[in-house]
């Protein structure tokens, strides 16, 4: 006892000598997560911490403040032992099962003059889940991504089917829908302020997301129509080759993406409504009400599209043109009209995908182009040119990518999509639902 008092006495003397030189910053946090599953740890105040050196002599002690932090100065870079007095933890809290009340730091671990040590209380949010729980959560996330991918990919696949064009600017149509919605929802168009008598519309011309989303989708459809009418129908009439058109879509993609970047900036930004929600825990998984609504809506839209393609006259015409344009024309189908419709529908669906993606992950200038490669993997898996294939393929790729993040690091979770792409092309180039044709 006497020794330790003496020790802390000397310690405090050296502290004044090296006032700002070396210190241990000890943080005590209660682990928790917010609705979207991001880490949201809470500070724990009033916890006693003591620090001893290699000889067991106490060099400092303190209590955590409001922000759960205590800074204990130490004389030098050396090995220390940090002890947390568990009896001073607030009632009902205990240290995480994996976290010991005694932690050590070594001399080498001082990268800067201050070394940070963390103690966690409560349940660890990442480790405590069982494999089955993590798998089911990933599958659920995968379904959400898959629905968005399927929605975006239908247009890409239909455009390919009816015109033979692989559109590398399709991701930008997705972004366009997402950002158009953002403009109506957040930026506001002041000349539309006169509409403020409507519910959900403000004097500044900003619209509630329930207005903004359909408007954005309409703009997406219009954008698709404009691309066809302004560029691609003219190119087809002039008989410009498909490879040339494909390279042109690359230019279009560069142009649009940098336009978005210059107007919107490089940050990601959320829509106004439905941003913060508490997740529902359903069995092993959690999902926010917003995501539930979005997923159900996506499913409804996709089923409608599939049924329309299957049973309506226009849907049949579309599939006929997709199958064999010349034969379709010969049977009296106006293929230009079908192609125009496909661009409008594809643009609108891509825009819906963009809005839903924006609700899920926030809006950004490259939200669509980052999906492009996954869409390609999806439509190749499903069968290039087949609308049903795009639905199935996009859905499968979405689930696969999310589930893969259980095994591969998150930053590499897109890799399995490339593997699938290559395997499909090697063994079944026509995809799951495509029809076999002699190629090469």
């Amino acid at each position, binding site marked *: 006892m006497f020794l330790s008092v003496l020790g802390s006495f000397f310690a405090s003397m050296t502290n004044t000598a090296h006032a700002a030189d070396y210190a241990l910053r000890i943080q005590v946090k209660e682990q928790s997560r917010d609705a979207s599953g991001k880490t949201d740890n809470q500070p724990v105040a009033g916890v006693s911490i003591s620090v001893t050196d290699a000889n067991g002599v106490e060099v400092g002690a303190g209590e955590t403040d409001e922000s759960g932090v205590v800074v204990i100065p130490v004389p030098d870079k050396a090995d220390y032992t940090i002890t947390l007095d568990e009896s001073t933890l607030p009632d009902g809290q205990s240290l995480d099962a994996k976290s010991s009340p005694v932690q050590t730091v070594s001399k080498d671990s001082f990268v800067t003059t201050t070394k940070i040590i963390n103690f966690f209380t409560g349940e660890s949010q990442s480790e405590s889940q069982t494999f089955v729980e993590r798998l089911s959560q990933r599958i659920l996330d995968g379904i959400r991504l898959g629905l968005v991918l399927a929605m975006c990919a239908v247009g890409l696949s239909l455009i*390919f089917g009816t015109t*033979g064009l*692989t559109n*590398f600017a399709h991701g930008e149509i997705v972004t366009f829908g997402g950002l158009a919605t953002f403009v109506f929802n957040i930026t506001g168009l002041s000349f539309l302020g006169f509409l403020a008598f409507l519910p959900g519309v403000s004097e500044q011309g900003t619209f509630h997301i329930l207005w903004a989303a359909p408007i954005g989708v309409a703009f997406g459809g219009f954008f698709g129509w404009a691309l066809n009418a302004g*560029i691609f129908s003219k*190119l087809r009439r002039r008989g*410009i*080759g*498909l*490879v*040339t*058109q*494909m*390279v*042109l879509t*690359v*230019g*279009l*993609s*560069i*142009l*649009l*993406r*940098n*336009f978005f*970047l*210059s107007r919107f900036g490089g940050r990601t930004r959320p829509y106004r409504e439905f941003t913060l929600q508490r997740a529902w825990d359903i069995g092993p998984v959690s999902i926010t009400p917003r995501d539930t609504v979005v997923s159900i809506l996506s499913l409804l839209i996709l089923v409608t599209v599939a049924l329309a393609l299957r049973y309506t006259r226009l849907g049949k015409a579309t599939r006929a043109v997709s199958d064999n344009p010349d034969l379709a024309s010969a049977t009296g189908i106006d293929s230009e009209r079908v192609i125009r419709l496909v661009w409008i529908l594809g643009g609108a669906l891509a825009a819906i995908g963009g809005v839903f993606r924006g609700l899920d992950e926030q809006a950004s200038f490259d939200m669509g182009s980052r999906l492009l*490669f996954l869409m*390609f*993997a999806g439509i*190749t898996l499903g069968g*290039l040119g087949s609308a049903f294939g795009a639905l199935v393929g996009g859905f499968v790729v979405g689930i696969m990518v999310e589930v893969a993040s259980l095994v591969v*690091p998150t*930053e*590499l979770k*897109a*890799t399995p*999509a*490339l593997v699938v*792409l*290559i*395997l499909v*092309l*090697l063994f079944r*180039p026509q995809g799951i639902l495509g029809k076999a044709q002699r*190629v*090469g």
Partner: protein
Amino acid sequence: MDWTLIIENSLKGMVGVNAVYFAVAAIGMNVQYGYTGLLNFGQAGFMACGAYGLGMTAHYFDIPMWWGIPLGVLFSVLLGLLMGIPTLRLRADYLAIVTIAAAEIIRLIVRSVKFKTYFGGSDGINNFSEPFREIGTDIGIQQSAEYGFWPFTFTGRELWTLVIGWLVVALFGFLVYQLMKSPWGRVLKAIREDEDAVRSLGKNVYSYKMQSLILGGVIGTFSGMIFALDRGSVQPDNYSRDVTFYILTALVLGGVAKVTGSIIGPMLFWGLFTFIDNFMRQIAEDPIKVGNFTILQSTQVGQLNYMLIGLALILLMVFRPQGLVGNRKEMAFDGR
């Protein structure tokens, strides 16, 4: 407005390091796109092979830097096989899709934390180009001295990279020119025009396409090496898919299916790019406004430049897909 400075910079841009590494990569892409009709949208991946081949010698293998050259070539041959085997029997678009995907995955892998020991993560690999600089010093180029005449004044450091770089351009330019005159080159052009006809003559189209893809990729690899040696570092984000697209734009600007086109294209590209960039920055010093609406402010100049690249590519494809010196008849292929 300082016109002298703008013109000086633009002329320098035409022969600078950027033009060099674009030219080498464009010569490679020209073999694939111009002569064979293959759409390789993953040239940046091949360039990364070269750059990382060099970087890994110091960072991971701990062997002399020069081993990086065969290593980079080996990487790019493997990459070419990976991209080519599944796609070259299929229609043209599959290659485009797979190359764009593969290049993007390569970028994700080399910047990942998981493989940091091999590739250095998002910081990349630095300071490995000393052996290259030393040769320059040995033959008497002072690294920090100024050489040249107006407007082409370069430091010894830049000059040495440029000398080697333009030598590589000349070498590959000559090689490709000779190859395309040979029977082998004529088969490639025939494949571009009509694959089935070539097949019916008993040629193995698949194998020729593969050779073309790999040759173009290996040339691209050297472009990545030049860039990495100049910087003395490799950064994963220098090999994004946009780099491929800019090189493609530069190639189409110059002229496809012509060696001269693939060299003057990048020179023009960087000359024009520097010109527009300097010009825009000078007029955008004060934000340009119409009423309350800002049309252009200085922070948006970069994006505007890239928008213009995209626009240029669109206009070129509509009105002159063969580029400045190309022959229109050679760019009429369809890809179906």
